[in-house]
């Protein structure tokens, strides 16, 4: 009985962000010390659906950035990791791929800002894309490194001895085994980009307003209701992923 | 002396052990031969106290131990996998049973050194399990069990995952050390030669029933043990 209560308690703790955000997104004028005695409203959700909504615009920007970043990072990381796995021997190659990822993204942004300024990329969409690629490509390289095993190499050799070129090898020896991982890496990079705040805020100087930037803006404006709504929108893609692809997270515990 | 009386065990209405009874004298190895699914592992687990829900009784020196917890039975179960503690080196793995009994360091060192020499593991003392071969790991597993002089050793096909030549070396080594250390053991295998090398007495397990032979001759002569078939096979090979 105690165990069941403990598990239920844990579940409630894990669900509390969702519950708190939902509650606030329908609340307004929530003065201290009332708990439930305040007006509830759908006006914030209606704001979301209006055309000029900053939220809609932010969702669009976030989706575009995350989609592009994850597509490019997955593709490039896939092939770069092949190069490292097949053609290098020192483990320092793989270790150095961790460096951009392990230094806090915002600290990396601070140190690289000079170059972004010189290239005219500060405060631009392209600048944010590049900045996020600098952390997602190395992640993708690390992610795919263990895929390039001797089994895949032997399959490539087999295709070559049967007269195939690299494209044949890709189509028949590599992609069939890599499909699942490519999808997983895409979604992992998508989430890294989707959640990103510090680096995006610094390089974007607030001009490229992604959903995370908007959440923080509403928090600083002391508008917890819109912040909650924006926060809920941030939660949707990962929650959908967790629900739709149950093994997506579970099988990649070590990779993350 | 260990006595097992009329052990019966069923899983989901399927009888796995049917009235299994035998006696095991001190310092003796009973080798039990049987195919997969004959109930050998189930019998070992019941004796070790790892399975309940059976009828019958197990007696050690006349005292029933059915309600005694595994750690207090004085039986050590040796699996097919060595199951060495990965964070301890060879020396520490072998010494484990003495360390937890708070024996003096000098005694532990002496006994561990002696066991390492007997198991021919000199030079490997400071290596960790992942640095050892399968045969070496299994020797460490034996050393860990032998050093605490258990009432009974329960061996569940301990050499099954080894290559043939290592397996043979291990069978002979086990026999030598078991006799020298005076260990009582129940050795379960599906390999006829292994049973013959390691055992003092022999048993055959089939469909949950155990037949025990009091000596090697009666085991060899029995038509179901497989020995006669084996002899016949090699004779035919030789004649051709």
């Amino acid at each position, binding site marked *: 009985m105690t165990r069941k209560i403990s598990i239920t308690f844990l579940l409630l703790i894990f669900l509390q962000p969702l519950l708190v955000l939902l509650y606030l997104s329908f609340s307004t004028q929530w003065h201290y*010390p009332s708990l439930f005695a305040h007006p509830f409203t759908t006006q914030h959700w209606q704001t979301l659906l209006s055309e000029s909504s900053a939220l809609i615009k932010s969702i669009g920007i976030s989706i575009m950035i995350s989609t592009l970043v994850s597509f490019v990072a997955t593709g490039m990381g896939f092939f770069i990791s092949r190069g490292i796995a097949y053609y290098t021997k020192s483990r320092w190659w*793989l270790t150095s791929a961790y460096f951009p990822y392990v230094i*806090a993204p915002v*600290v990396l942004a601070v140190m690289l800002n000079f170059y972004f300024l010189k290239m005219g990329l500060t405060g631009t969409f392209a600048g944010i894309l590049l900045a996020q690629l600098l952390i997602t490509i190395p992640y993708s390289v690390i992610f795919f490194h263990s895929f390039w095993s001797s089994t895949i190499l032997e399959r490539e050799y087999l295709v070559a001895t049967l007269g195939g070129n690299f494209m044949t090898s890709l189509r028949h020896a590599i992609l069939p085994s890599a499909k699942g991982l490519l999808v997983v890496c895409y979604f992992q990079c998508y989430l890294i980009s989707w959640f990103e705040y510090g680096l995006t805020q610094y390089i974007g100087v607030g001009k490229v307003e992604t959903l995370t930037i908007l959440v923080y803006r509403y928090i600083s404006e002391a508008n917890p209701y819109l912040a909650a709504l924006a926060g809920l929108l941030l939660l949707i893609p990962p929650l959908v992923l967790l629900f739709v692809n149950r093994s997506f997270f579970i099988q990649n515990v070590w990779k993350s | 002396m260990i006595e097992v009386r009329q052990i019966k065990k069923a899983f989901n209405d399927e009888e796995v052990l049917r009235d299994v009874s035998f006696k095991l004298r001190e310092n003796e190895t009973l080798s039990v031969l049987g195919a997969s699914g004959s109930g050998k592992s189930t019998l070992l687990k019941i004796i070790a106290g790892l399975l309940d829900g059976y009828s019958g009784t197990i007696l050690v020196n006349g005292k029933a131990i059915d309600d005694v917890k595994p750690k207090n039975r004085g039986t050590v179960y040796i699996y097919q996998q060595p199951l060495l503690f990965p964070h301890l080196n060879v020396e520490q793995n072998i010494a484990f049973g003495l360390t*937890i009994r708070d024996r003096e360091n000098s005694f532990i060192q002496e006994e561990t050194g002696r066991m390492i020499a007997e198991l021919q593991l000199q030079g490997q003392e400071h290596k960790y399990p992942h640095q050892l071969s399968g045969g070496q790991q299994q020797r460490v597993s034996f050393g860990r069990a032998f050093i605490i002089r258990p009432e009974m050793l329960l061996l569940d096909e301990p050499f099954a995952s080894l290559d043939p030549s290592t397996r043979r070396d291990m069978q002979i080594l086990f026999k030598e050390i078991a006799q020298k250390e005076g260990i009582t053991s129940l050795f379960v295998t599906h390999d006829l030669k292994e049973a013959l090398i390691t055992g003092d007495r022999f048993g055959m397990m089939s469909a949950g029933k155990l037949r025990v032979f009091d000596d090697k001759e009666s085991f060899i002569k029995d038509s179901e043990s497989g020995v006669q078939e084996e002899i016949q096979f090699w004779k035919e090979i030789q004649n051709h």
Partner: protein
Amino acid sequence: MLKNTVIRRSLAGLFLLLCALPVVLAMGYAALYSVGLTGLQSDGFMLQHWATLFQGEFLSSFLYSLWIAGASSALALATALAALFTLRKELTDKRVYRMLFLPLTVPPVVIGFVIYQLFSGGGILSRVSYQSGLIDQISHFPEFVHDAYGVGIILAHLFIGFPFFLILLLNLYQQNNLDELEITAASLGAGRKDILLRVHLPVLLKGIFPVVSLYTIFFMGAYEIPLILGQSSPQMFTILILEKLQRYSLSDIPVAYAMALFYAIICIGTLSWLMMQYKKRWN
């Protein structure tokens, strides 16, 4: 052979361009700025900005960040171990196991916001305390956010760290056959305490150490959560870096770059050390 060399060089070049070069450029610029060789107030080589790093608010900030990172990791690991040993059977149920991934779907900025809404003076817990008569004024509610010990930040990190460490511990438990090792140890005469201290904990702690070390670095470099929940002084290292860069005093900028470089060196140094300790795992 020629083709392989071309491919090898191209891929290595691409790797260096996209992964290694940005870090080198970043640290290079920060190094130059921090010693006065470039930047708005470059007066030639000097080390005084580095000297400032180890005193006053900078030292306090660094120590505060170390405290937050260490406390967050330690608490997350302790609670995960406690959950593992008390609820392991329930946690191996697929439905329960899946729920451990829920916190991983929440971005740091949202966690910070929610912790604020729960634990601040005007937050949900304060309201519940007031309504249940535990406090009669808002000022009587204890400080959990913007406080000296970073309780709110640590709680937010616990929300991330606890489920992640627990997932890893569950996997480590299974991969290392700890159930069977427990039986083996018990049959060798080990009691519950011996099994916990001599078998379970050493194996699990050894296995999880690299991840806990990495997470400690991540917690130390946290930005979004301390931005919402942290106090004004001392601040977390990353917050102070950005504050120094974005405020009005130009003389703070070289120090900010020195701080950034210092932090990057610690991260890279720790990672490299970990890599050397755990060669096989990294291969």
